[in-house]
Structure formats: C-alpha cells, structure tokens
C-alpha cells in the first residue's frame, strides 16, 4: 500500500516535472525567438536623441537665437490611477498657472493618451517635484528662443511645432544648423519607466553648427525702430529697409514692418511673416534713374554738364504723355537726376540701343536672383527687347515696366557706387561647428564689373547733388556727406496705375567719398506725404544719423572736424530744443501733510520716485530726467488704486551730476 502511494507520488512529481520540462523546452527552444521578439518589443525602445540646433549670433557676437530644453507632459489615462488625478491637477495648476479645473477636465477620460502640458520649462519641471505616478510621463520638447523677439525676425526665421526650420537663415542653412540626431536603446519596465540604457548602442547626437551673421544688432534695431516710427507717422501699409556694405555685399540689417515674433509665429499672418524685401517685387520708379544714367555715362552717350530741353513739364512721346512733377525748361544731365525729371531721363534713354540698355540692366542683376542666403527669393521681371513697345525704354528709364525686389535694387545700387562691381549679397559671416572649428568664413563674392570706376565716381557725385540740391534734401545729414536718390512710383492696382497708392522710397549711401553704408527705405502706400523725398528720405536721415552716432569710431574719419563736437551731443541738442534748459531749475519735492498728490513738475525723476514710494502711490515713469508732466493733478486726493504717470524729459543743468 505504502509502496503504491509512493509510486503514485513519484509518478505525479515525474509528470509535473516532465510537463514543466516540456513547457520550458517549448519556451526556451521552440518559441524562444518569438518570445524574445515580444519581450524586446515591450521592454526596449529605440529613442531618438534630438540634436540641438546651432546658435545664431550677429557680427558683434551678440547671441540672437538659442535653445531651451523644455518638456511636454503626457498622461496615459488607462494607466493613470483615479486617486492621483486630483493631485496632478493641483500641482500642474500651481506650476503652469492654469486653473485646476482645466487639468481635471483633461484628465477625466478613461482611455487614450492626452497631452497634459506643453513646453514645460526646466524651472517648472523642478517645481513640479518628483511626480512618479503610473501613466504620467514627459518627453523632451526643445524650444527655439529668439532673444530679441521681433528683431530681425525675417532674417532669422523659426522652428515650427514639428521641429522643422521655417524661413530665414534657419531654413536656408537647415542642413548645417540642425545637426545630426542620435539614438539610444532604453529598457523600460511594465509601466513605461526607464530602467536602463544600453550604453553600447547609444549614438550621441551631434549639435548643429553655430551661425555668425553679417547683420549688426544695433543697426537692425535702429532700422526697425525708424521704420516703425515712419510707418506710424506716414500711415503707410508696410515698410521695408535694408542696410548693406556696398564694398562687400554684406547685409548689415534687413527689416520689414509689420513683422512677427518668431517665438509666437503662429499668432501672425502670412503677410507679417513674409520676408517682403526678397519676395515682393515693385516698380522702383525714380530710384531706377541712376541705372539708366550710369549706362549712358558708361557708354559716353552723355556728359553731366550737357543741357537738355525739358518741354516745360509735359512731353508727348510716341503719343504718350510723359510728365514731370516739377516742370523745367532746361536742365543739365546732373540736374535731371537731382530734380528727378522723367522727361529728361526718357529723352536721354533714347540715345542707347535697346540691346545695350537691356545688357546693362541685366548686368546690374535685374531679372535675376541675387542668390542671397535666404529662401523664397523672387527674381523680378525685365522684358526682353523683342517684347518692348515703342515706349518701353522710356518708361523703363524712370523705373516703370520693370519690377525688382528691394534687395535687388540695393545690390545693384551698391555696384553703382562701389567702383562698378556687382557683389552677391551675403548674410553669413562665419559658421562654427560644435567643436569650435571654423567651417566657413565670409569672403566677398564679386559677380561682375557693371560700369567703369570713372562712371561710378561720376554717379556718386551726381547722387550727392540729389541730396545737396535736389529731391533728397530731407535725407541730408549735416556732419557727413550723403548721396542718394528718391523714388515715388504709382502702384499697379487691378491692372492700372493707382492715383492714390504709391511706393515711396529713398536709396542712399554715405560717406560719398568712400561709401561704407548703403541703405534703402521703402514705404508701401503712405497716406501722408506720398513722395519718397518727403516720406522715405527723412527716415533714411534718422537711420544714418543714429548709425553714425552708434558707430562713431568707424565714421569719425569722415566727419567734418567742426561737427564732431556737435555730433557727440546730437541727442542733447534735440532735447534742448524741446526743453529750454536755461529756464529750468530742479525743484525739491515737497511732501504734503495729508495724502494729496505732491507737485512733482521740475523735480528729478529720482526724487519723484522716492516721494511717491514713501507715500505709497503707484507710479509709472515715461522717459527720463526731469518730470515735465504728471497725470494726477498736484493737490488732488489719491485713491489707493490710482497710478500716477510721470512724463520725464532730459534737460541740461549746469553743475548737475552726470553719467
């Protein structure tokens, strides 16, 4: 009996072991590959290591664009315990700054994965603490930061939500700037938490190269500020400005107003995001006359002193009337440009053959891409001589029947004043890889000689005359020699030239004797002013004066000695005219006994601030120096929430401390 029991037990154990062995053999030998495959699928994951985009600097090494390592939080609702949702909502509400109900609403489902919070910064992540909750996880979500917001937005471009470079140098140099993504094999546990990383199978990411651009942040901000002011003053639809070094083709600043903030690019429309300086073409009008004249002078078909009969302002040419804004009977060739006579230049243009004229214009780069390092450039339009009508050459001579981009115009204009050589406009000064090695360094790219050096010298002098004696007087800066040309062209609206909408422009350069800066200012449809000489020229003047003041060392040698001292105090002179310092004496603040508004006018901003702080009155200061106006009347009672706005102006007072 005992033996039979033992035998049964032994048999049972044997069977059990046999089953286990069979099962084990099945798992380990027969289905080993299949199960290994599933295990690897479940436990391991190949994760992409996103390469950091390269940084972008201006030519003075000011950092313009960099990266921030944000994360995005996700919640797997099927795995997220119901008891923890309240806690998650509370924590996220505190840190992210959205109401708790917003997060509770997101977390109320039972299935699927939701995005709980996007672009959580490392500081916020730290504040969230150690949130180890099943089903809650985050992933890297790098953010590109344009440090100066709108500044140079059309040049810099942005990275969209899909991490793709869009627009500007970011898009043009995408291969260089975006680097090479890496990868790593990670081992996860059942709830998706990281257990380990397979170091042997990790391929590190290679960061993108840093770009040093040719632009100067100071020039760029001056240009943008002045265009913005001009846009408001002249009530224009939009404005474009470009500053370039005519001797190398380096773009020093480029701006289109309205613009956009690349950090919030989705809030702006296509027009605001488009780099209109290279994508939009327009008929340049009178700013084109210098090119016609340069071709004639280069071919020796006229001389600056030669006199021409100008038909008293109306000239019928091939049954078409050409008019001058200011009628003249006689002007010499230089004066034709100075006074911007359409009749004069149209008459002169008849001396050059169609083919020669076309050849010169193509030589200046019109109708071709400039090959600037930006995406989306338009080539403009220039008809071939075979397609010209009898009046085409006359119209083209003063900037109609031809369309150009602002960048094309300034590039061609540079050739006109730099000795006659057309340079390719460039934006990249240096490219440095992640190891700090120089990969690329700027070199000017001469395209071709367009006119002779002699013609270029003649043109510089004629263009100086435009600013000194002609239509560009409003662009003249007293302490440096400015040359340039105004332009006012009617806009083509629905196939015909509008009498209400104009492109008002000024293209100028300085110093005339050795051009260092060329600048184009273009206003689209200004309501006030209309003429380039009234609208764009004063803006050019402000830009030029401010650039010289900012870069005084560079321009010092070109400035008249008698003006040097004056220049140092340019801004102060402006203030003087606004506020006569001789009649101003700084007052001391007298605090009233009761809580009434003290009289702060003519008190220093610092004293006024001290007094208001002591009295517990909220304030805002506009401007600097001395209080010239206060929003709350002296002596009036002050309510606790009222804010006093103090307008200040800088005045000069003998014996006052200075900085």
């Amino acid at each position, binding site marked *: 009996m005992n033996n039979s029991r033992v035998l049964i037990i032994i048999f049972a154990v044997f069977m059990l072991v046999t089953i286990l062995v069979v099962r084990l053999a099945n798992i380990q030998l027969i289905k080993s590959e299949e199960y290994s495959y599933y295990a690897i699928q479940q436990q391991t994951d190949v994760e992409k290591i996103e390469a950091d985009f390269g940084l972008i600097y201006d030519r003075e090494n000011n950092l313009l664009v*960099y990266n921030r390592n944000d994360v995005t939080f996700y919640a797997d609702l099927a795995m997220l315990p119901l008891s923890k949702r309240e806690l998650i909502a509370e924590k996220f509400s505190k840190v992210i700054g959205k109401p708790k109900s917003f997060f509770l609403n997101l977390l109320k489902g039972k299935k699927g994965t939701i995005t709980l919070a996007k672009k959580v910064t490392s500081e916020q992540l730290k504040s969230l603490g150690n949130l180890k909750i099943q089903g809650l996880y985050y992933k890297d979500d790098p953010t590109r930061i344009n440090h100066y917001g709108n500044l140079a937005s059309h040049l810099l471009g942005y990275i969209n939500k899909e991490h793709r470079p869009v627009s500007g140098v970011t898009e043009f140099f995408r291969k260089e700037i975006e680097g090479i993504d890496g990868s790593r094999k990670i081992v996860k546990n059942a709830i998706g938490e990281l257990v380990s990383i397979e170091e042997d199978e990790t391929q590190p990411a290679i960061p993108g190269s840093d770009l040093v651009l040719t632009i100067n942040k100071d020039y760029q901000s001056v240009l943008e500020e002045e265009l913005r002011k001009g846009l408001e003053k002249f009530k224009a639809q939009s404005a474009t400005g470009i500053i370039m070094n005519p001797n190398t083709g380096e773009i020093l600043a480029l701006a289109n107003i309205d613009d956009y903030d690349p950090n919030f690019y989705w809030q702006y429309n296509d027009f605001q995001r488009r780099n209109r300086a290279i994508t939009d073409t327009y008929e340049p009008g009178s700013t084109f006359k210098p090119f016609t004249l340069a071709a004639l002078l280069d071919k020796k078909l006229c001389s600056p002193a030669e006199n021409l009969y100008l038909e008293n302002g109306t000239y019928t040419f091939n049954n078409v009337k050409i008019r001058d804004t200011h009628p003249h009977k006689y002007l010499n060739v230089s004066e034709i440009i100075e006074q911007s006579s359409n009749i004069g230049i149209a008459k002169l243009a008849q001396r050059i053959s169609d083919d020669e004229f076309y050849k010169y214009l193509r030589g200046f780069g019109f109708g071709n891409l400039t090959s600037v390092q930006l995406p989306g450039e338009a080539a403009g339009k220039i008809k071939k001589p075979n397609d010209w009508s009898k009046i085409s050459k006359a119209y083209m001579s003063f900037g109609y029947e031809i369309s150009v981009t602002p960048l094309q115009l300034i590039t061609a204009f540079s050739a006109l004043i730099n000795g006659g050589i057309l340079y390719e406009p460039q934006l990249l000064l240096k490219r440095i890889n992640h190891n700090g090695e120089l990969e690329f360094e700027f070199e000017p790219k001469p395209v071709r000689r367009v006119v002779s050096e002699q013609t270029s010298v003649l043109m510089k002098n004629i263009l100086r005359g435009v600013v000194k004696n002609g239509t560009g007087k409003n662009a003249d800066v007293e302490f440096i020699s400015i040359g340039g040309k105004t332009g006012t062209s009617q806009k083509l609206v629905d196939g015909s030239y509008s009498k209400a909408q104009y492109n008002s422009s000024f293209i100028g350069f300085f110093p005339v004797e050795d051009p260092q800066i060329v600048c184009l200012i273009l206003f689209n449809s200004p309501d006030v002013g209309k003429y380039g000489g009234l609208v764009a020229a004063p803006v050019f003047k402000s830009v030029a004066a401010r650039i010289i003041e900012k870069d005084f060392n560079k321009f010092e040698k070109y400035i008249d000695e008698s003006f040097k001292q004056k220049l140092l105090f340019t801004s102060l002179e402006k203030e003087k005219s606004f506020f006569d310092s001789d009649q101003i004496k700084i007052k001391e603040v007298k605090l009233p006994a009761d809580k009434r508004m003290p009289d702060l006018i003519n008190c*220093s901003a610092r004293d*006024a601030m001290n007094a208001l702080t002591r009295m517990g009155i909220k304030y805002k200061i506009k*401007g600097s120096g001395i209080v010239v106006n206060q929003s709350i009347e002296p002596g009036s009672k002050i309510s606790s929430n009222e804010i006093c706005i103090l307008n200040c102006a800088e005045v*000069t007072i003998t014996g006052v401390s*200075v900085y």
Partner: protein
Amino acid sequence: MSKSAKPLIFYVLFLLVIVTIFFLAVVIVKINYEETIRSKEEAERRLKNENQKLVSLQAEYQNVTTEDNIRFIASSQLGMIKRIESAIVIKVSKEKINELQQDIKLKYE
C-alpha cells in the same frame, strides 16, 4: 544513506549557496548599474539644462549691458541726467584759500 552520499549532498548544497550568492551579487550589481545609468541620464539632462541656462543668461547679459539699456536705466530708474557742459573749473589761489580759512576760524572759534 551511504557514507559517501553525505559529502556529495554537502558539495551540492555548497555549490548551490555559491551560485545563489553569485546570482545575488550579479543582480545587485545590475541594479546598481541601472541606478547609476539613470543618475547619469538625469545628471546629463541637468547639465544640458544648466548649459542652456548659461547661454540664455549670456544673451540676457549682452542685452542688459548694451549702451542703450544702461542709458535708459540710468535716466529712467536712477534719475541721472546728462551733462553737456564741461565742468566749471574755479581757480583760487593758495593765499586766498588761507585768507578764507582764517576768516572762517575767526568767525567760528
């Protein structure tokens, strides 16, 4: 049980203990290794964040140290005023200073 069976069981048990200890050691080392890898990963993330913060601070430093910004803060927040006239130099002879000092002494002593 035969005499020779005892040492065999002893050897088997000893071997099992050794294998178990070895196995446990391997598991502990593996856990430690994984923990270290996770710490390294966290440290690398922190380093990257700190580096990026450093870069952003550099940008901010460049921004706040621009001449325009310094001038703006000096005038709007500190109430400093520009001076356009050079300092007035008052020339007084030593004799005159001595004379004035004597006068002051006479007056206040």
